[in-house]
């Protein structure tokens, strides 16, 4: 695991998200609670909508383009839609958000 500091928790709005640019595309980092974050691919499996712009509810996000809804925990599309987005290990330490960049390299290569 290679934990990389990507910013302060406070920089992500509660029930909102921010993008992180990587060489393999954008990752969305969601803040579902005061002290709870998740990271997934920013790209909807349907028509590539930017998931960081979706409405965050519970531990789910709804894509802003056509309302596909994903579990942030598993990356699986909910309801009738079928598709999966990559999820990445992310954690909070001392108010900072840490992303595991090694997982990023593995998933992108896979």
């Amino acid at each position, binding site marked *: 695991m290679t934990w990389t500091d990507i910013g302060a928790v406070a920089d992500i709005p509660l029930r909102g998200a921010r993008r992180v640019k990587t060489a393999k595309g954008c990752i969305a980092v969601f803040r579902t609670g005061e002290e709870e974050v998740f990271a997934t691919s920013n790209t909807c499996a349907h028509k590539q909508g930017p998931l960081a712009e979706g409405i965050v*509810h519970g531990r789910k996000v709804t894509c802003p383009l056509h309302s596909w809804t994903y579990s942030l925990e598993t990356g699986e599309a909910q309801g009738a839609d079928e598709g999966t987005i990559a999820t990445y290990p992310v954690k909070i330490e001392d108010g900072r958000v840490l992303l595991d960049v090694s997982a990023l*390299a593995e998933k992108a290569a896979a």
Partner: protein
Amino acid sequence: MERLVVIGAGMASGRVLEHLFEAGAPFEVTLFNAEPRGNYNRIMLSPVLSGEKAFEEIVTHDDGWYAEHGVTCRFGEKVVAIDRSRKVVVGEKGELPYDKLIIATGSAPFIIPLPGHDLPGVVAYRDLEDTNAMIAASSRPGAKAVVIGGGLLGLEAAAGLRLRGMDVTVLHLMGHLMERQLDEAAGYLLKKDLEKRGIEVLLKASTQRIEGDGKVERVVLEDGTVLDADIVCMAVGIRPAGQIGADAGLTCGKAITVDAQMRTSDPDIFAVGECVEFDGNLFGLVAPLYDQARVLAKTLLGEDDAFAMRELSTKLKVTGCDLFSAGDFADGEGREDIVFRDPARGIYKRLVIENDRLVGAVMYGDTADGNWFFGLIKDQTDIEEMRDTLIYGPAFQGGGGASADPLAAVAALPLEAEICGCNGVCKGQIVEAIGAGADTLDALRAQTKASASCGTCTGLVEQLLAVTLGDSFDAGGAKPVCGCTDLTHEDVRRLIKARELRSQPAVWQELGWKTVNGCPTCRPAINFYLLAEWPLDYQDDAQSRFVNERNHANIQKDGTYSVMPRMWGGMTTPDELLAIAAAAKKYDAAVKVTGGQRIDLLGVKKEDLPAIWADLNAAGMVSGHAYSKGLRTVKTCVGTDWCRFGTQDSTGLGIKLEKKLWGSWTPHKVKLGVSGCPRNCAEATCKDVGVVCVDSGYQIGVAGAAGMDVRETQRLVDVASEEEAIEWTAAFVQLYREHAKYLDRPYKWVDKVGLDWVKEVLSDPAERAALNERFEISQSVYRKDPWAEHASEPEAEKFQPLADLTMEPAE
């Protein structure tokens, strides 16, 4: 006898000594304490502050106890150094050799280094001195206290000061109280209870400075709010006080590092309590400190034992606030929630489940089952079998079951709560009429007029029938807002008003939402209803808005955005056009002329939005709100300015209307048109509000449409002057804002309530004036350019990626 020296006479070291003496350990003990007294029960300072206990009652070890066990007390004396090479402790009054040494220096309150933090009258909440300073400040009648920090300690301080008769305001930086232990719903209920006992709570309150001449007099917040204060209590957290260990060269992380036997990196030096770090963990609650004390005593006695982390639970020691939190309810993946709310009794319970095990619980209002849930968490009991009834507690296991009552919200309304706003009918009158035999909706309408006008409260009236008559009434199939609630949009709107619900957590809790924080269907609707009802109190929530309204631009299919500046009444200037052209070139945008008489710039990247807005702002242009459920455009023709047929200044009226209405949020988008003569070149007769000018004045039509449905406007009124045209239009828009269901365009809403009802309301001059006044109050908040706000820091930064890792080496 071995010489044991202890630095710090707190609850942890006190417990170590008790264990040692109980076991008859052969130590000659010397106890240093910086405070001029021995060990007392620090967590009972709250009842001392509130006056429920005297200090003497919370002393754990008195002089007699120390004498009995032969402890040499050096109280009021600080230890300044440890010399490990000579094995001596250096106190302020001299050195002392040791064979074994325990560091138990505890923690220090964290003081935010604000301007004025060192003024007399600014205290922490840590020891008896702080407590006595607060008690002294409360002795003056009418004295005011400000508590900075809405965590466990701050709230206990606030409650104690309030019981002493002070005016107390709690400032909390986060969006809800005790955010480490509670989620939003429980935090909302806690705030409500504290407010009931007279404590004012300000959330998202950032303190800028503390002011006073020689002593504290007031606190100033970042937003300019000024609070008078005779005392300021800073309770924002603690940090380990292990510096003496670090100075002596012991291995330290955030505190003094110990192993599972509480031994530091020096085999003869031990540490215990809040000054230690074990396996990366710090400590603040008493239960693990007592575990550590037991282990350390065993280690000193040469027996085997090991300290291990365990689950913790929290209860707030404020009388009447029934609150329980245990385990880990906020962090981690693969978890599910079970939520139970009973709005009538102010109860909220949330369980967090992972792999068929309970991992966290938050409860408010009814914590009777707290210890049972805590047991399930600690024992990691498999709860798969009882999952469905788990939230009802141990009493329900083995049969039975209950469900939240969908009628609870209505049942909880007080009798004086207004149900029907049109006719001023309150719950009491309706219940009385039902009691007198009005057992159908029609009968009730006939007798009380409730729901007999616009009809939006029909759902509530039906629910009152159901509550009062029980099973004998069938409410019919009104459609709920979404899966989070059984209430309809109309019900929710009425209840927000009747119960004065001013935040989303308040709506979720008081109306019994079935989810933790709503869904993409209800969140934008509730956000609108709240800002429409309480424009001055409610803070618009960007995270409850669809992407376009959050980013103030329209998202396109490729994730880029379109940017459209406002052109008042469709008029522009050569300078504006030059600025638009320059921006289009600079940001590589496609240019499109729209149907609403303005120019759209398409294909702008999100990162560029603040910059393009700044450029357009610099040329005097503001947001066109082409993305909002709000006023879009006012389309006009050239009217008497140029047209040989024009009867009135249609362009001028269009501009005046646009300047009055812009920025306002509405249930759905609103488009206006003003035509200068009945030839209707501005196509005003298919707009939400369309004005057609004639020789004698202005014909105002409403409820037109030219989208999925095409509708011609219906005539609302003919007026003689421009002022009247503006007054009627604003009154109509405000009536729509106050009554329509979210996402109903005006024509759909008018279909439901009937044009006759709209005419009847608006024909009353007093009603029109009141609607205009409420509209202007709302506009005092919302008539502003969102681009200007988001083009400058700190908002502009939020449009950039949080981090750019593209330069990170690939593995």
